[in-house]
């Protein structure tokens, strides 16, 4: 049951990365997102980044195991994120979440991903619901 979850509860922080160039190349290969911005230092430098940004989808997807590890009695019915600013290759990435709304039927969580910068790279949200029979 989700009745023990309260507004303001935090989800244990998950740390991922840092991701290196071979890791981003593998992700590009399997995801089909071969945008050279993520793979080519010269392209990243041309628009002012000291290193290529990590694929936003690679980071957004990482919230799913974090949420599942938090509560395996809930299912995730939605996951969304805005890619606010790039998180760069070589950054350690901190994923966190906080409950903004909680009822017996639905939990709404604010998600954030931080790289080395002070501002978040991703601001996201997820909706979770109790598993049937849980």
């Amino acid at each position, binding site marked *: 049951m989700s009745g023990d979850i309260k507004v303001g509860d935090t989800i244990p922080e998950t740390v991922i990365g840092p991701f290196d160039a071979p890791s981003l190349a593998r992700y590009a290969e399997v995801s089909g*997102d071969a*945008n050279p911005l993520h793979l080519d230092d*010269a392209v990243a430098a*041309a628009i002012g980044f000291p290193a290529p940004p990590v694929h*936003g989808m690679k980071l957004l997807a990482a919230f799913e195991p974090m949420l599942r590890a938090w509560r395996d009695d809930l299912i*995730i019915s939605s996951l969304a*994120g*805005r890619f606010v600013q790039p998180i760069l290759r070589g950054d350690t990435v901190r994923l966190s979440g906080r409950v903004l709304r909680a009822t017996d039927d639905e939990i709404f969580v604010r998600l954030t991903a931080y790289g080395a910068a002070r501002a978040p790279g991703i601001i996201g949200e997820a909706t979770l619901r109790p598993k049937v029979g849980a």
Partner: protein
Amino acid sequence: METVPLAYPAIWLAEPSLFSVVRDLCDDLDVVPVHESQSFSYDAPLVAGESYDFSVTVSREETPPRLTMVATVATSDGETCARVETMLRLVPRAGFGSVS
């Protein structure tokens, strides 16, 4: 039942047959698509090994310049199980080097 990761449908959006529509439009406009936001909303989880229908609508906004791709995932019986929305900001290619 083995379910599919929530973000997996993004791979289908990157299929050349689908994404070529975006690439061609961006080439025509001389802009680069930058991933601005992404969402996945599920009525039912996707099951590994099952076949699904994946349909995509692309719309373009002028101000600010962006493309929105809205995809629905449905079972072979026509029951919708997921909705995927991708927002791409369109940035002038000037200053973006050879990004495409």
